């Protein structure tokens, strides 16, 4: 489900595509946030109990009991407002809230989506909300429908990839560079003989004919180094 995309017309006429977060990502984020607010609320409670030596007097009762309740029940709206549509749980799960225009939602939308938690959490354990994310087109819960928001995957910044591309842009074959980068990304998951075979094939095709013998003798680590050079755009220099 995480591969579904929310596409909207950008202000320039060029579409913007955002990967929609599915129920799995949502649940993961929620569970992390639930633990955070529980731990912080309990920490306050225990700290306050230690301060008052375990005796909740009539006068100290509000200071002991009210803050943990506030932390537990207002965690989501407050943190989402301050973190511009994210929470620590959402950040860890790599998701964020956007509005229907693909922008960061305003405070009104955040408040509305949190008010409707009352409905989404019925009859318990967020059953209504979870079921709605399974059956709705954009994997949204009722609170999101009400606020006009949805959860998208917050992809990591492409800065590093773009720097690599900038460094390797002189090469004349983008596809080979991409292939090399993709193989390197999957390098640890691939079996050693399989990845060596793929890497040799790619390097041999890129290299000068007299280099084929040298490439055939390269060890696994050397193949990886050569492949990284191709991904960075050093293949031509090496091949020559």
């Amino acid at each position: 489900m995480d591969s579904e995309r929310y596409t909207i017309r950008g202000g320039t006429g060029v579409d913007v595509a955002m990967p929609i977060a599915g129920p799995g990502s949502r649940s993961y984020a929620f569970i992390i946030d639930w633990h955070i607010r529980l731990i912080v609320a309990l920490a306050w409670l225990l700290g306050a109990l230690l301060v008052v030596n375990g005796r909740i007097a009539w006068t100290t009762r509000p200071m002991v009991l009210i803050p943990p309740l506030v932390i537990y029940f207002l965690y989501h709206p407050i943190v989402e407002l301050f973190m511009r549509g994210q929470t620590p749980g959402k950040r860890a799960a790599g998701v964020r809230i956007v509005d229907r225009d693909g922008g960061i939602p305003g405070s009104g939308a955040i408040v509305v989506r949190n008010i409707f938690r009352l409905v989404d959490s019925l009859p318990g354990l967020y059953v209504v909300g979870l079921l709605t994310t399974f059956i709705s087109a954009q994997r949204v819960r009722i609170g999101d429908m009400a606020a006009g928001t949805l959860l998208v995957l917050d992809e990591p910044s492409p800065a590093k990839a773009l720097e690599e591309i900038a460094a390797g842009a002189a090469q004349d074959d983008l596809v080979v560079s991409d292939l090399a980068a993709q193989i390197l990304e999957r390098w640890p998951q691939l079996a050693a003989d399989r990845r060596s075979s793929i890497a040799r094939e790619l390097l041999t095709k890129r290299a000068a004919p007299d280099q084929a013998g040298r490439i055939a003798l390269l060890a696994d680590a050397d193949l990886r180094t050569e492949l990284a050079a191709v991904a960075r755009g050093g293949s031509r220099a090496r091949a020559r």
Partner: protein
Amino acid sequence: MTSKAGIAAWIGTRAAAWAELAEGIGTRRRRGASSIGAATQFVDSYRNLARDLAGVRRFAPGTRVAAALETLYAQLHAEIHRSPRGGWRAVLDMLRDDLPAAMRELAGGILAMVCLMAGSAVAGYWLITEYPPLVSLVASEQMIEHVESGSLWTEGIINVTPSSLLSVQILSNNIVVSFFAVCAGLLFGLGTFYLIALNGFMLGALFAFVGQHGLGRALFTFIVAHGPVELSVICIAGAIGAAVGDSLIRPRHASRRESFQGCLARMTPLLGACVVLLIGSGFIEGFISPNPTYPLGARITIGVCYWILMGIALGGGLAPRRPLAGGSSSDSP
């Protein structure tokens, strides 16, 4: 030069600018605010990036460059299309324009909710007057025992629970009831209808029951300070719920979902004001209502004054209109 070589050369001329832009977005996300100059630069970059992305989608689809630019474009789009942070000016605009507009839109609904609550209260009063044993439908065993022994269940409550804690309990309960009245509008307004009717019915029934034991005046004394605003806000929340139901029954936009979202977006400031008012009435109910040292006159004064303040706030009176340069007090078009 081959076409692929041409594309690579073009990417070479642009890649550094893309990388710099990606860094800029990262910095913007970490720091939050940005200057007008930086924002303008982002908008220019957005146009350039859209043009570059369109080219990459056409000439180098499925490549790492395309994937990186898609992500960069989506992130820049989100930054540019973020909702503005209004600060105090937005609060003043809300007090001056949004609240009165929402109240005007809801005027008929609020009147209907007041009538529904009053009618249900009369029904509850009549039922318990005619059939006293049915009071167990609306009151707990403990409450009934209290009243039958000649005292209200609220008496001495501040000796058991501190006023501040009592206030928080009360105001959070009232806020949840108001939110439920709004959310229940999802059931085409019927949920809200039943919730308001039930609240009115319980109020009338309790008044009838305590009246039978000579405690009607005591209950009135208890609720008169906080009750006017609390009940008014419940009626307003009910009207918002009814508007939500109406937006689903008779959508004003292309789809029911858009109509529903539009209705809630218009009503959110009013709902926020209701929460603030309920916090105030919660504190009155926690600190003043159960405190026997406050005489009835003082309670009535507090209740009436707070209700008038509510009327002024919801009517836009807390934020005066901005005068035009020519001295007119009306809003500019």
